[in-house]
């Protein structure tokens, strides 16, 4: 059957229009990213200098100073969170993929998905009740616990997913060699999925790095260096929050710079993830 030339042309035009519309909306979806970056760089880059990374905040009225303590504080909090979130999440994911029975797994997955949707302020309250009240004070520990708890469901689900991507043939081959179950899980299946697991952990870290609410009444913030993990500690999102609601222009500029640094931090993590997963999907062969 032949198609008349006009009909053919009309179809081509329709196809073009639809592609354009789809492209337009795709652009619209990523436009906020571009706008945020553009605005952050315009407003923050000017206040970003070496002393921003090396100096403590100056008292009100004095010009200069930096957010060194907040940058280090955020890294410390992420470290503490990882110590809670990574082992629990990874082992939980291993349980789901390698050991659990269907019934138990259903409940764990359900629980993890619900936890993923818990508002971050609630995690702050949990950490406040579990850590701040017994320790009678705000502390880095409390902030780490709040962020760590937030990481657990994220890491559980990504770990499980990448482990399930490892073909069953490898498990069978290893079992047929008379290797014990836990050695297979760690040395063979875990290693095969390692890139994917690391990716999941990094994404979870990037996700919690920018959280402010759970830190408000756990880590609390600190204008100076924190010398003990049981003392309040500064964090970038907290510092940005404090500076942004202050009445001082200089602090506003610093808040912009802080936001830019925080954005770059999560950006770097995400780019690291891209580099890790380039080529094969999460290192798992087809």
């Amino acid at each position, binding site marked *: 059957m032949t198609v008349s030339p006009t009909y053919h042309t009309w179809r081509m035009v329709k196809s073009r229009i639809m592609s354009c519309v789809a492209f337009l909306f795709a652009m619209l979806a990523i436009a906020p990213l571009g706008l945020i970056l553009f605005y952050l760089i315009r407003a923050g880059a000017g206040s970003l200098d070496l002393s921003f990374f090396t100096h403590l905040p100056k008292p009100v009225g004095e010009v200069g100073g930096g957010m060194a303590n907040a940058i280090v504080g955020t890294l410390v909090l992420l470290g503490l969170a990882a110590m809670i979130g990574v082992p629990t999440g990874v082992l939980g994911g291993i349980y789901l993929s390698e050991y659990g029975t269907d019934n138990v797994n259903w409940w764990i997955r359900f629980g993890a998905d619900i936890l993923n949707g818990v508002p971050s302020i609630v995690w702050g309250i949990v950490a406040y009740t579990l850590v701040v009240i017994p320790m009678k004070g705000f502390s880095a520990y409390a902030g780490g616990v709040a962020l760590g708890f937030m990481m657990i469901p994220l890491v559980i689900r990504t770990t499980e997913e990448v482990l399930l991507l490892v073909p069953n043939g490898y498990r*069978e*081959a290893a*079992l047929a*060699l*008379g*290797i014990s179950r836990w050695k297979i899980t760690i*040395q063979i299946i875990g290693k*095969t999925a390692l890139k994917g697991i690391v990716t999941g952990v990094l994404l979870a870290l990037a996700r919690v790095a920018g959280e402010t609410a759970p830190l408000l009444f756990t880590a609390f913030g600190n204008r100076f260096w924190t010398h003990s993990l049981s003392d309040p500690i500064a964090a970038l999102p907290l510092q940005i929050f404090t500076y942004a609601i202050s009445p001082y222009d200089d602090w506003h500029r610093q808040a912009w710079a802080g936001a830019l640094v925080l954005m770059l931090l999560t950006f770097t993590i995400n780019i690291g993830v891209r580099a890790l997963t380039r080529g094969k999907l999460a290192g798992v062969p087809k």
Partner: protein
Amino acid sequence: MNVPVTVNNKKPGAPETTRKQMEPLSPATVAGAPAPENAPARPTPSSEMAFDVNRLSGWFSGHQVLFDLNLQIQAKAVTAIIGPSGCGKSTFLRCLNRMHELVRAARLEGKILLFGDDVYGPNIDPTVVRRRVGMVFQKSNPFPTMTIAENVTVGLRLNGVRNRSILQERMEKALRMAALWDEVKDHLDRPGTSLSGGQQQRLCIARALAVQPEVLLMDEPASALDPIATMKIEELIQVLKKDYTIVIVTHNMQQAARCSDYTAFFYMGRLIEFDKTEKIFTNPSNKQTEDYVTGRFG
């Protein structure tokens, strides 16, 4: 598991040492590297039975897939299992090294003796059974994170062998036995997955041989390979049967005829006929067997 337990399941001819081997191997025993030709640890005279399968039935959930199988598998010979798809060939094979029980809701009844030892005995560790009964799968599956050398030695390393010279020696020996040494000896540190399909399958055979099993189960080892790679695997089987008992599941009747000494014909979960390969293919006693081997069904 409803396995009938008898007090003395040892056959009169079974060697005294076999009972010992069912106990978990200490790393030292594994590391001792008793080579089959110079160590009398596993004497298997050619008339001996490797497997004695008694009234074996198997289920997946409520669905019965194996019906009351009885057969004896000769040591140091090749036994082929043929039959149409879904007849229980692979399930039977996986009962021999306790892989069947890994499938959820899988169950079996009956008794399997491996050189006189009850494979499903009450105090038997399945991992020890699997070290004695190696397995090669339809789809070659070298571990993707490991080099060629690491793939061969993984069974030893993860069972506690650390001595480098023993690992090196066993690796070379296993690769030579699998007729792969000459092709890979200059790049043992390349990934196992960099090899061709046929080479990968021989690598998997070497990996299974490195732990020095007594029996090698092969589940359609050549069905994904081209004719030349298939021929190499078949030649290899002929060499390996001097030292090992081989049970091979195959869809390919020519392959069964070419490389096996005994052939079992399975149909719908039942053992229809089991005899010398020559007899099965030239003068089968059962009509169904005759129809199958002459290509009239299946």
